[in-house]
């Protein structure tokens, strides 16, 4: 049986997720034994189509990205959104929270019209996506696990259990009990609660769970010293994208 052919692509992103995806030693070599990497611009020059699994990093922010993404879809049996930018829009969607004109002007001044852009969207707003590997950046172990599931023909992990689950099971001190504003209760898990493990509140990079109780979360954050304005800002670091943005 020939090995599955996998490829990596990127759109607007920091490419940190691709970097994390190869951030192994032994595991990477074992993985290379199971798959053929046929496209990976950041690391290899070869470029072949006819792909079994495409990992797509980055959000879609302008017209010319769409045909390229569609081409990837057409040539791949399975398309996986890799990382927050692709899954939920990530930090790139912050720009959706302000008038687009203003954001462009902030960066490019009177040359702003040279930068055609539209509201940031996750890739599943453009093409059908078969699975998600969440996080900013992705968690290496979660990536490995998911790749394995994909190769077994299984679905990627839903991660609808919030960050608190892993945090509690690791017996971290809950940051909320220490008065730090943590988004863990409504954020998708799967990261091993890495932020709280290092004493840093979860900022929601993996996206919100399917049915988040945002009102209760806002009450909780307010108890931890944030104003309503603070909370609104805080909750949009990674979760600014709303489907209405692009209607």
């Amino acid at each position: 049986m020939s090995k599955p052919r996998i490829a990596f692509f990127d759109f607007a992103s920091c490419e940190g997720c691709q970097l994390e995806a190869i951030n192994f030693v032994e595991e990477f070599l074992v993985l290379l034994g199971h798959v053929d990497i046929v496209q990976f611009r950041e690391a290899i020059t070869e470029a072949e189509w006819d792909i079994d699994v495409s990992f797509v990093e980055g959000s879609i922010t302008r017209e010319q990205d769409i045909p390229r993404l569609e081409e990837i879809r057409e040539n791949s049996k399975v398309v996986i959104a890799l990382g927050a930018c692709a899954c939920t829009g990530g930090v790139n969607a912050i720009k959706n929270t302000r008038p687009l004109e203003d954001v462009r002007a902030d960066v490019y001044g009177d040359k702003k019209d040279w930068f055609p852009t539209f509201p940031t969207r996750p890739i599943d707003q453009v093409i059908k996506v078969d699975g998600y590997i969440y996080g900013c950046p992705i968690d290496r172990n979660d990536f490995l696990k998911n790749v394995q599931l994909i190769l077994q023909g299984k679905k990627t992990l839903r991660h609808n259990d919030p960050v608190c689950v892993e945090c509690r099971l690791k017996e971290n001190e809950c940051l909320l009990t220490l008065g730090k504003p943590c988004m863990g209760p409504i954020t998708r898990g799967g990261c091993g609660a890495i932020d709280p493990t290092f004493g840093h509140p979860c900022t929601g990079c993996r996206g919100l769970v399917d049915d988040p109780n945002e009102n209760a979360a806002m009450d909780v954050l307010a108890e931890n010293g944030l104003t309503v304005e603070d909370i609104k800002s805080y909750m949009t670091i990674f979760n600014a994208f709303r489907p209405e943005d692009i209607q």
Partner: protein
Amino acid sequence: MRKNIDIHVHHVTRVEGHGDVLLNVKDGRVEHVALNIVEAPRFFEGMLRGRAHYEVREIVSRICGICACGHALASVRASEAALGIEPSEQVVDLRKIVLAGENLSSHFLHIFFLVAPDLFGVKSVLPLATTHRDIVVRALKLKKLGNDVSDVIVGRHVHPITMDIKGFTVLPSVSALRDVQKKIIEMLPEVVDTVDLIASVAGGIPDFERETEYISLGPVSGSTEYPFYDGVIKSSEGMTYYPAEYRKVTNEFIVPDSTAKHCKHLRDSYMVGALARFNNNSDLLHPEAKKAAEKLGMIAPVHNPYMITLAQLIETIHIMHDTVEIIDKIIRRGIKEEDYSYQPRAGTGSSAVEVPRGILFHHYTYDSKGRIEYADCVIPTTQNLENIDQDFRKLAPTILDKSEEEISLLLQMLVRAYDPCISCSTHQLNVRFK
């Protein structure tokens, strides 16, 4: 021979981000040659406006996955300058380790994964996995070493976790520092071997020189430290500036027949990055790094941009020795819990940090509630772009006798040598052609 050449390399591979190389030759005359940036703009400065002080570094570290720690560092330092905060000596030392880890992992990534395939005449590191498995394993191990070094302080190299304005959310344990120190010492011979290996294939490095201006951090007066974290802005033309004066150096400008913002200082263009640092500060390198430089035949000033890779390799040796010493110093002093709380206020501040690809500037203005009013980040790649184009213009006419494939490869190798970090270039304008 009057040739017509039309090269358009769509998305140069083995670089970070999307860039195209273009070369138009008509009747044997170079009409146009440039690196065309096609990366989607991400509007970071626009995204920062109105954000609270504790959100800023969270957001800016997402500018770039490779130099996430560098951006985070430049960010907290610019915030500290603006908010009037002085980090403790312990914090500064720990931050130096974070930066060291990042420079290591990025340099190794560049040397082994992006450049080495060209030197070995293959298209990527993957075929090397069968032909030179030991090298690939070494590459992975060294790159991981860099990550481990930053991880011990900030939890994760791609988007550091614990790094805050004034301090860290948690401090590393002495035993964790010892462990990572041990790892560095264990890996040193591998790097020395790498120097030999690269010295043996260095003949494959194209022979091309163009003298330019080199800009990097320089030591603050009296310091003997090869400056990464701290220093003045230093030009090889003999000028120095304070970080707050970075705009006097960068002078972002619009190129007449292109639409890209480029930078220049005293000459047509300037270079930042490992080679600029080497040229400006090589006397401050660790003796072992100096030895490696000698072995590689590198004597400052070096004017061949393809040699950036060698300068990086020399730097890795310096960084590893230096980090071992910093860790010793921290452990000797003992790790103490400190108060990292602070009050936001209105203010303006700038920072300059040497990240893998060169000097990085962040500059913020906060309002009285500690929210960003204005933000500006000038990325090393932005500063190098004009220099790359100038190199192209000198190089292209001299290689027209080669095959299109060879020309294209040489141009791409030049781009790769600079290790441009295109997704970083928040300031990058689209380069459009007629």
